[in-house]
């Protein structure tokens, strides 16, 4: 299993405070290449704050974020993206008044390494993979909610990500689309992508990840194989009453 290999991405003693609120406290974990990890926890446990910090959207108060041994804590978000740390958002944040194709080529062109023609070719491939090929000329805001989630995933893939962080990919999607998203995530992982999935939907998470980390009140309270972690009494306690929210 990938867990045995050395992590290419790790965070060490990461903390973020908002005034007196300790949103994330002393968080450490590592990810090996090809791993697929779930990050779960009740509302307000610090999951999204963690995603925001490890993608540069928020500056941590302390701690290190190592991408291939390079500490990127506090670097701006575009630097993380250019290093292949890609993300999606809880509510899709697309370039709504731009066509689907343009949404996809923005990340491809952002580090000046790729020409427009090759970016568009790659974007067509991504659209085929996501079964959105027929929508390339549509404006992003004309897409359904589920299609917007898929397009956002596609936009993240255009960064040729080393690490893909998916923030609530299963939230608010139609059951048929849920299966499709799960299939896409599994397929991306089979292709070698390292993926972190943040969600409340434990059933969906369990069907895709091999390892799960649990946060509660800003701290990591468990980390390991899915079955083992879900039996952990601390996790059960933290989750009591919240599973109904999924």
């Amino acid at each position, binding site marked *: 299993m990938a867990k045995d290999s050395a992590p290419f991405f790790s965070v060490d003693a990461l903390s973020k405070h908002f005034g007196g609120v300790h949103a994330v406290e002393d968080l450490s974990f590592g990810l090996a290449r090809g791993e697929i990890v779930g990050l779960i926890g009740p509302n307000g446990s610090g999951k999204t704050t963690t995603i925001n910090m490890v*993608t*540069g*959207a928020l500056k941590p108060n302390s701690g290190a974020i190592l991408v291939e041994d390079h500490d990127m804590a506090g670097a*701006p*978000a*575009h630097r993380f*993206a*250019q290093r292949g740390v*890609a*993300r999606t*958002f*809880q*509510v*899709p*944040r*697309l*370039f*709504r*008044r*731009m066509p689907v194709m*343009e949404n996809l*080529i*923005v*990340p491809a*062109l*952002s*580090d*000046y390494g790729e020409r*427009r023609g090759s970016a568009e070719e790659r974007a067509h491939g991504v659209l085929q993979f996501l079964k959105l090929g027929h929508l390339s000329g*549509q*404006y992003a*805001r*004309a897409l359904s909610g589920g299609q917007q989630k898929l397009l956002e995933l596609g*936009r993240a893939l*255009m*960064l040729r990500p080393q690490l893909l962080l998916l*923030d609530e990919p299963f939230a608010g999607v139609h059951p048929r689309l849920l299966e499709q998203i799960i299939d896409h995530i599994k397929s991306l992982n089979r292709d070698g992508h390292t993926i972190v999935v943040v969600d409340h939907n434990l059933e969906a998470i369990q069907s895709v990840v091999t390892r799960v980390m649990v946060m509660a009140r800003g701290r990591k309270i468990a980390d390991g194989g899915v079955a083992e972690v879900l039996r952990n009494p601390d996790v059960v306690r933290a989750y009591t009453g919240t599973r109904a929210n999924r």
Partner: protein
Amino acid sequence: MMRPSVAQWTQGLLLALALLLPLVSGPYWIHVGAIAWYYALLAASWALLAGYAGQFSFAHVAFAALGGYASALCIELLAFPLPLAILTAVLLAAVVGALIGALVLRLSGPYLALFTLAISEIFRLVLVAEEDITRGMQGLSVPSLFSGNSDVPYYYLGLGLVVLAVGAMNGLLATRVGLFLRAIREDEGAARASGVDTTRYKILVFVVTSVIAAIAGIYYGHFIGILTPNMAILPEMGLVIAMAVIGGIESLPGSVIGAVVVFLLSESLRSYGEWRFVLMGLVLILVQRFAQNGLFPMLEQLGHRRKEPLPAVSAMEEPRGG
């Protein structure tokens, strides 16, 4: 070879008309036309700043004043030769543009609008107060660029500047920079997460548009021969916004056409006094109601008979949370 679009035909036709106007028109309309080019430069560059990049700045006319005053003062106080004075004014606008761009990096929507409005008013009040240098409300005289009394050379200079500026801005928009600016307008956080260095492009767009506004101000100052702080009052900014919105805030040629139409309309209705501004307001309301993207893009759409209309302009639309 690709066939020219309706928009290109219209632009070509209007450019030909603009070139021919001085041959068929009297001095009054040539004078009016030459001033219209000043507004066209402002409206088109503001359309790039607000329509494309989503930076709803109210300091644009202040940059025109900065350019005009800097050029004039370089000549009067420092005895610079004219080309050096103009170059200095343009460089100053670029530096101040970069500074403002950097200051407003974290501001958007109404906060950006209020901040730039405050900066613009502070600058105008300094122009009023520093009478010893700027001559305050008496006005600062500015030397002419051309000898003789004809406005025709200014008319063609203004037209040339508009064509150059719109060409240069359209050139910029055709590159990946244009794509990034629109992505920033749509959702800055998502653009950053997509690898776009938003700081760099936001400052760049402030520099480019501030320089064009300053060039407009320099042209205007040397043409009219006198500058007053009134060129930076809020109604002037409102007029530039109305021109861009009526013509098409996301179309540079559209905003030029908007500027010319609004200014010519305003001049031809001069005898109605303040009522002409009421009419302008009504035109603005009607355009916002029936052609939210502006008149020129509406014309373009009719020509294309697009199946799906362009989504409506929403420069002030709040980004959705996530």
